[in-house]
């Protein structure tokens, strides 16, 4: 009893301190980033760097899903479809026209976003479970088109020989840690972007939609517009992930982005905590690393992903980090605080 209390006590003090002073929080994050930058320099094995790279990639994918699922409350199990669109667009542009990663990635992301928009529009009338099934159908249809539309996608032969990204003529390879830095740079950018959205009017609108769509509509929020926007942005981010994968592994085929990937992404989101950004990092870290660390469990990993879905929903649907945030709620500018003698 005593020991648990001590740990609780220390944790509470530590976290409270950090929440109170943004400076401390920023310093901690800054140190963390510095540490991450140093890792390849300190002689970590290429395998370890690779695991961290994959964690970064899945963090991006989890962040993308989190936007529509965690913040907007629309569960999608077709994210792999958007990754595939981003990946194929990038790959085709690179292999056929020799365009560099940064251009192909942009195009891939936009293309994915376009499909997010196209998928979002008609399916928005659907409620909860039906929408989810529709996203599942979308993911599978993308895969089947990739498999059958030979003239465009090369069918089952896939696209090989995708070139590595070039920055000012400098090739990024796995050996020089290039992919590691690239993916984590992307993670940071996307996180900042999502942070901005969440704190903005859009973010509040999305959360209102999640909490009670009917009430949100009655409050005058243009729910359709926001939902489609969330879908599109989520797709764009997933597309970025897909493009990155294509340029890193340098070979993609229709089976690369299948339903298993969508399930993995949603497991990460649910484990980490829907609606929390930090949960995505933790979820990705846990679910990507455990098959590497616990080799005996890796045969069972899909069973474990399934178990996570079942157990988390049952016992802790808000995920590890979900639920009430302990940070102080920051009122938007221009909102006046009520008088002290308590209006309800």
């Amino acid at each position, binding site marked *: 009893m005593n020991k648990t209390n001590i740990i609780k006590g220390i944790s509470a003090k530590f976290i409270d301190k950090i929440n109170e002073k943004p400076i401390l929080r920023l310093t901690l994050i800054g140190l963390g980033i510095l540490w991450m930058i140093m890792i390849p320099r300190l002689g970590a094995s290429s395998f370890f760097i690779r695991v961290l790279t994959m964690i970064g990639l899945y963090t991006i994918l989890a962040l993308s899903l989190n936007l529509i699922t965690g913040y907007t409350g629309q569960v999608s199990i077709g994210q792999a479809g958007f990754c595939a669109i981003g990946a194929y667009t990038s790959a085709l542009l690179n292999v056929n026209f020799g365009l560099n990663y940064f251009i192909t990635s942009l195009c891939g992301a936009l293309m994915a976003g376009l499909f997010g928009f196209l998928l979002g529009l008609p399916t928005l009338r659907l409620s909860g*479970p039906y929408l989810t099934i529709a996203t599942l*159908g979308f993911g599978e249809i993308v895969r*089947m088109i990739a*498999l*059958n539309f030979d003239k465009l996608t090369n069918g089952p032969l896939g696209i090989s020989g995708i070139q590595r990204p070039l920055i000012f003529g400098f090739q990024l390879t796995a050996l020089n840690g290039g992919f590691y830095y690239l993916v984590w740079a992307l993670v940071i950018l996307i996180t900042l972007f999502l942070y901005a959205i969440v704190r903005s009017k859009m973010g509040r609108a999305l959360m209102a939609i999640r909490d009670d769509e009917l009430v949100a509509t009655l409050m005058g929020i243009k729910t359709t517009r926001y939902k489609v926007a969330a879908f599109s942005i989520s797709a764009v981010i997933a597309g970025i992930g897909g493009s990155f994968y294509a340029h890193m592994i340098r070979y993609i085929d229709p089976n690369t982005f299948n339903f298993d990937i969508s399930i993995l992404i949603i497991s990460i989101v649910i484990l980490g905590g829907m609606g929390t950004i930090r949960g995505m990092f933790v979820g990705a870290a846990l679910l990507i690393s455990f098959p590497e660390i616990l080799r005996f469990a890796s045969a069972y990993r899909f*069973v474990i992903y*399934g178990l996570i879905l*079942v157990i988390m929903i049952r016992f802790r649907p808000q995920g590890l980090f979900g639920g009430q945030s302990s940070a102080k709620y920051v009122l938007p500018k221009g909102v006046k605080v009520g008088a002290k003698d308590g209006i309800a």
Partner: protein
Amino acid sequence: MVFQQIFDGLTLGMVYALIAVGYSLVFGILRLINFSHGSVYAFGAHIALVVVVSMQWGVIWGLCISIIVTGLLGVAIDKLSLEPLRKKGSKPISALITTIGVSYIIQNLLMILLGSQSKWFPKLFDYGRLHIFGRIGISYTQLGIFLVSVILLLFLTVVIQRTKIGLAMRAVEQNPKAAHLMGIDVNRVVSFTFFLGGASAAIAGTLISGYYQVVYFNMGFIAGLKAFSAAVLGGIGVLYGSVIGGLVVGLSESFAASYLGGGYRDAIAFLILIIVLILKPNGLFGKKAVEKV
């Protein structure tokens, strides 16, 4: 040849209808999309496989044991993972995600425990082929599937419409709270529904394995999704709708395979699903659910 394609499509359709009935049953009573149904179907087929092939006890025993064991699996899924959610009053989407998780667990456990290779299953109703109009070949197995589907459908309809437990099921579907107040043990009714769903999955699994003569661990995934499309098309919750929906999906698939090529075959079912969801989510025969504010 067109007639043969039509008949192939109808047989395929009956296969999906057999599976779709399970989805409809559970949705009809609980308003829950039971995504795990596909994997339960695969499970049922594997139980039958073990009894018939490994233990050599014959098809009748295989079917009976599979019905009981798979039915119990259905009940277990409900009791362990879904009932607690109902008690908590969770959103429907939680139940859906849970059933997705369950389907993953069952399917992958099947693979780990029983192996990933395809396994042989004996042919059921192996009495040869009939020839209609001289050119269309129908095997007795196909007739068998057709017959069993219809019998199953009739049986389930009788149970729901004419028996006391069926009455209880309909009451729970309309209003669980009121049913409870009237003295109905809602949880027992739900368990019974899941048992029926599992049993129908077992029947489907055994029959279909006896037709294609192959059993493999992920047989429930694609077939389950297509059957789900069939159920949605027909109006999920309406039993005879599943049969009609199944036939439509089967026919579409048969023609798609013939005219668009084998690659697009699976896509047809998904296309139908999305179109139905967008245009008429209640399907052909479904009832409109009134959402009270």
